[in-house]
C-alpha cells in the first residue's frame, strides 16, 4: 500500500517523468487572461467529453475534459483553469489557477504542458502572464486567439517571428472555425518532451546582487529567491521569512517603488516582442463598434435605462417562459407518482417513494427550467461583454453600502435563485466583500418565494385596485421586493462597518470588447449547470424530502390508514412546489374528501404537528397558529414547501396549488379554536414579510457552507435572518393591529 502511494506522489513522478510520458496520458492545463477565448478553445478541443468538479477544500470549479491529440494516441486530460491576469493572485479563482500552473496544487499533478491563450487584439497585457510562466520555467505553448478580429482591425501578427522572439511555440487558433487545432495538438505533444523555455533577462546590478546573496544564504536558486522577494506574501519557513523581511525593509528605505522593477522589465521585454512580431497601422484604437455601443450603453441617461430594461426582460422571461416546462415537469412527476401507486402494493415503501422521494425531488426539479434560463442570460450577458458594463454602471451605488460593483450581478441573479448568485460572487477579490455579498444575497426575493406571495395575495388581496388600474397584489409583491432590497442595503452597510470592516475595495475591471456570444459556450454552461443542479436534487434535497415525509407520517394515527395515506400522497405529489402551475382544480375525488379529517388528525399527531404546536407560543405574536407553524418549519427546507404543506394541513384536494380555489378557500375559511378566522389580510402580510427576511432554504445554507468553507457563516446567516424575520413580522402584525387593521 505504501509503495503505491509513494509511486503516485508528485516527487516520485517527477523522477520518472520522461519515461512516464510514453505510457501515461498527458495532463494539459489551459490558462489565460479572462476574455481571451479560453472557454471557446476548451469546448472546441474537448467537445462533450468534459466534466465539472470542485477543487478539494475550496469551491472553485475544476473543468476537465478529454482531448484527442491524435487518432492513435491516448487522449490528454485537458484542465480549464479560471482566467487570471498574473501569477500574483488577487482572488480565489486566480490562486487556484496559479497553484495548478506552478505545480503546487495538492489535488493535481503538475501539468505536462500549459497552453496559454493570448488575445491577439490585446497582446501586451496577455503576454504578461506568459513572461511570468517563462520565468517559472513552465512548459508552455501559446495559443493565439482572436486573430480573425485582429486581422479585421488591420493588425498583422507574424506568428513565427513571435514564437522566435518569445522562445515559446505559438499556434494561431480560431476555435469557432476549428482553425489551428490539429497543429496545436502536435505542438503540445512535442512540447511535453522538450525542455521548457527559459528567460535570461536580468534585473539591475544591485538587485541581482541581492538575489545572488539570498540564493547563496537561504535559497536553492536565484529564481526561487526572486519569486519570494517580489511576492506579496512572506515565505512560510522562518529562516527565509527573516531574510526576505530584512531585504525588503532595506530596499524600501532607499526606494519605496523597488518592487516595480520586474514588472517594468517584463513589459519592456513584451514591447520588444510585439514590436518585432506585429505590424500595426492603428494606434490605440479598439474596433470602433465597441466604442459606439459603449457610448450608448454607459451613457449618463440611456445607460441606466438600458440596464433596467435588460433586467426587466431577464426577469420577465424567467418568470413567464419557464411556466410551460415547469408545468410539464410537475405533471410528469405527478403521473409518475400515480403510476407507482397504481402498480405497487399500498404500504410504507410506496408512501416513501411517492410522498417522500418523488414529491420532494420533483418539487425541486421543477425549478430546472428557471435555472437554465437564468444561466442562459448570465452567460449571454457575460459572453457579450455587457456584464462588465453593468458593474461599471452600478459600482458607485454599490460602493455607497461598501460593496463592489462586481457584487451587482450576483445580487441580480439572486432574484431568480440565491444559489447561482452566491456562486457568482467568486469573482470578487476581497474575501470580506465577498462574504458581505453572500450574506445579503438571500434577501433578494427569489423565485421560490413567489408561490408564497401568490397564495397570500390570491387569498386576501385579489381583485382590489388602487386608482382603478394598479392591482393591490402587484403593489404588495413590489413592496416585498423593495423590502428585501432595503434590508439588504442596511445589513450590508452594518456588516461592512462591523465584522467585515475593510477599506472600500478597489475596482480594476477590464471592459472587454463586445463580441457576438458563442452559442456553443452558452449551451455548455447550461448543460453543466443543469447537471450540477440535478445532482444536488438527487442528494441533499432527496435526504431532506425523506426526513420531511417521515416527520409528517410518524407517529402514525392508525384508523383507515391506507386511505388516509393515499390522500396525503395525492396531495403532496400534486402540490410538490410548481410555483407557476396554473391548472385549475379538478373535480374532487369522493374518497379523498372522506379521508380529509383523518389526514388532518394524522398531521396533528405527527412529529411535525407536535413541533407546530410546540412553537405556537413563540409565533403567536406574529399572528400565526400551529398549522402555520408546521408550514414555517417545513419551509426551512425550501420556501415553496409552504404551499404544499398548507394543502396537507388544510385538507385540500389533490390539485391544490397556490392558485387553486380550494386551497385559497381553505386558507380563507380556516378557524382558530375560538371560531375567529385564522387568517386575515394582516396575518397574510406578516407571513409574507417573514418569507422576505428569513433564510428558509437548505440549499442556500449548504452552498454558503461550501463557499465560505466554514459552518460559522451559514449559521450566522440563518440566525440573524431569522431574528430579522421575527422582528419584521412582529412589527407588521402588532403595528398593524395598533393601527386598527385586523
Amino acid at each position, binding site marked *: 500500500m505504501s509503495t503505491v502511494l509513494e509511486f503516485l506522489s508528485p516527487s516520485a513522478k517527477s523522477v520518472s517523468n520522461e519515461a512516464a510520458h510514453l505510457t501515461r496520458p498527458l495532463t494539459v492545463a489551459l490558462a489565460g487572461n479572462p476574455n481571451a477565448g479560453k472557454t471557446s478553445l476548451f469546448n472546441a478541443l474537448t467537445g462533450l467529453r468534459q466534466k465539472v468538479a470542485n477543487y478539494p477544500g475550496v469551491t472553485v470549479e475544476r473543468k476537465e475534459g478529454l482531448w484527442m491529440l491524435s487518432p492513435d494516441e491516448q487522449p490528454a486530460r485537458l484542465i480549464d483553469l479560471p482566467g487570471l491576469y498574473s501569477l500574483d493572485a488577487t482572488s480565489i479563482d486566480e490562486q487556484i489557477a496559479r497553484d495548478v500552473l506552478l505545480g503546487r496544487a495538492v489535488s493535481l499533478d503538475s501539468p505536462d504542458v500549459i497552453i496559454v491563450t493570448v488575445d491577439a487584439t490585446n497582446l501586451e497585457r496577455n503576454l504578461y502572464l506568459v513572461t511570468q510562466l517563462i520565468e517559472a520555467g513552465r512548459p508552455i505553448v501559446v495559443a493565439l486567439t482572436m486573430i480573425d478580429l485582429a486581422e479585421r482591425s488591420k493588425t498583422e501578427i507574424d506568428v513565427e517571428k513571435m514564437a522566435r522572439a518569445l522562445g515559446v511555440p505559438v499556434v494561431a487558433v480560431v476555435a469557432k472555425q476549428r482553425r489551428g487545432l490539429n497543429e496545436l495538438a502536435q505542438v503540445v505533444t512535442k512540447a511535453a518532451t522538450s525542455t521548457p523555455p527559459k528567460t535570461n533577462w536580468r534585473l539591475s546590478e544591485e538587485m*541581482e546582487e541581492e538575489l545572488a546573496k539570498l540564493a547563496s544564504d537561504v535559497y536553492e536558486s536565484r529564481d526561487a529567491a526572486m519569486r519570494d522577494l517580489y511576492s506579496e506574501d512572506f515565505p512560510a519557513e522562518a529562516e527565509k521569512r527573516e531574510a526576505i523581511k530584512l531585504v525588503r525593509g532595506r530596499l524600501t528605505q532607499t526606494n519605496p517603488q523597488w518592487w516595480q522593477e520586474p514588472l517594468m522589465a517584463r513589459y519592456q521585454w513584451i514591447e520588444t516582442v510585439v514590436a518585432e512580431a506585429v505590424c500595426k497601422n492603428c494606434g*490605440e484604437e479598439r474596433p470602433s463598434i465597441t466604442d459606439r455601443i459603449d457610448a450608448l450603453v454607459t451613457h449618463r441617461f440611456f445607460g441606466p435605462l438600458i440596464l433596467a430594461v435588460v433586467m426587466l426582460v431577464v426577469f420577465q422571461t424567467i418568470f413567464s417562459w419557464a411556466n410551460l416546462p415547469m408545468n410539464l415537469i410537475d405533471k410528469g412527476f405527478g403521473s409518475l407518482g400515480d403510476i407507482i401507486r397504481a402498480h405497487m402494493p399500498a404500504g410504507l415503501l410506496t408512501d416513501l417513494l411517492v410522498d417522500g422521494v418523488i414529491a420532494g425531488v420533483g418539487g425541486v426539479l421543477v425549478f430546472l427550467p428557471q435555472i437554465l434560463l437564468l444561466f442562459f442570460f448570465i452567460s449571454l450577458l457575460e459572453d457579450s461583454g455587457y456584464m462588465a458594463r453593468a458593474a461599471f454602471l452600478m459600482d458607485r451605488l454599490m460602493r455607497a453600502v461598501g460593496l463592489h460593483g462586481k457584487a451587482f450581478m450576483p445580487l441580480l441573479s439572486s432574484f431568480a435563485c440565491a444559489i447561482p448568485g452566491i456562486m457568482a460572487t467568486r469573482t470578487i477579490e476581497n474575501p470580506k466583500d465577498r462574504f458581505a455579498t453572500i450574506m445579503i444575497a438571500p434577501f433578494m426575493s427569489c423565485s421560490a418565494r413567489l408561490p408564497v406571495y401568490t397564495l397570500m395575495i390570491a387569498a386576501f388581496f385579489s381583485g382590489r385596485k388602487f386608482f382603478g388600474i394598479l392591482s393591490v397584489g402587484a403593489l404588495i409583491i413590489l413592496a416585498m421586493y423593495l423590502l428585501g432590497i432595503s434590508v439588504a442595503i442596511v445589513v450590508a452597510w452594518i456588516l461592512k462597518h462591523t465584522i467585515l470592516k475593510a477599506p472600500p475595495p*478597489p475596482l480594476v475591471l477590464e471592459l472587454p470588447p463586445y463580441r457576438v456570444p458563442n452559442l456553443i459556450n452558452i449551451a455548455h454552461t447550461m448543460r453543466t449547470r443543469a447537471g450540477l443542479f440535478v445532482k444536488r436534487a438527487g442528494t441533499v434535497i432527496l435526504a431532506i424530502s425523506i426526513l420531511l415525509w417521515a416527520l409528517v407520517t410518524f407517529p402514525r394515527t392508525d384508523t383507515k390508514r391506507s386511505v388516509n395515506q393515499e390522500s396525503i400522497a395525492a396531495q403532496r405529489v400534486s402540490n410538490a412546489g410548481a410555483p407557476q402551475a396554473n391548472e385549475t382544480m379538478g373535480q374532487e375525488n369522493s374518497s379523498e374528501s372522506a379521508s380529509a379529517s383523518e389526514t388532518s388528525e394524522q398531521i396533528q399527531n405527527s412529529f411535525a404537528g407536535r413541533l407546530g404546536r410546540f412553537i405556537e407560543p413563540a409565533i403567536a405574536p406574529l399572528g400565526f397558529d400551529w398549522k402555520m407553524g408546521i408550514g414555517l418549519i417545513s419551509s426551512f427546507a425550501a420556501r415553496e414547501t409552504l404551499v404544499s404543506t398548507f394543502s396537507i394541513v388544510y385538507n385540500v384536494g389533490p390539485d391544490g396549488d397556490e392558485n387553486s380555489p380550494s386551497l385559497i378557500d381553505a386558507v380563507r375559511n380556516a378557524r382558530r379554536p375560538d371560531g375567529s378566522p385564522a387568517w386575515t389580510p394582516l396575518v397574510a402580510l406578516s407571513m409574507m414579510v417573514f418569507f422576505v427576511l428569513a433564510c428558509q432554504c437548505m440549499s442556500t445554507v449548504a452552498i454558503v457552507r461550501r463557499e465560505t468553507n466554514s459552518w460559522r457563516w451559514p449559521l450566522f446567516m440563518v440566525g440573524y435572518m431569522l431574528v430579522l424575520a421575527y422582528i419584521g413580522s412582529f412589527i407588521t402584525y402588532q403595528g398593524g393591529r395598533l393601527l386598527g387593521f385586523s
Partner: protein
Amino acid sequence: MSALINVLPADVNINLAEPTSFERNTVSLDAMPRGILARVVAVAGSGAVARRLMEMGILPGAPVRVVRQAPLGDPIQICIRSYHLALRRVEAQTITVVASEG
C-alpha cells in the same frame, strides 16, 4: 527554443523615479480631461492594488486615455495598451500622467 533573448541587458539600470522632462505638466489620471492622449509617468502606492494596476499594463511610458466616466461620475473608463479598463477615481489618483505632445 534555444534562442534566448536578452532584452534587458544587465547594464541597463531602470530608474524607477524618472519623471524627466515631463515633470512640469504632470497631473493625476482622474484629473485628465476626456479623450486626450497621455502617458503614464508613475504609479504611486504599494501593495496589491498598485501591483495589479501595473500588471494590467499601467506602467511609466505607457499611453493612456480617459474614455468616459460612469453616470454617477465614478468609476472612470480608460484606454491603456489598446484595451479598456474601469478604475475608481481613488485608484486613478495614484497614477500620474502627462499629456502627450501632438
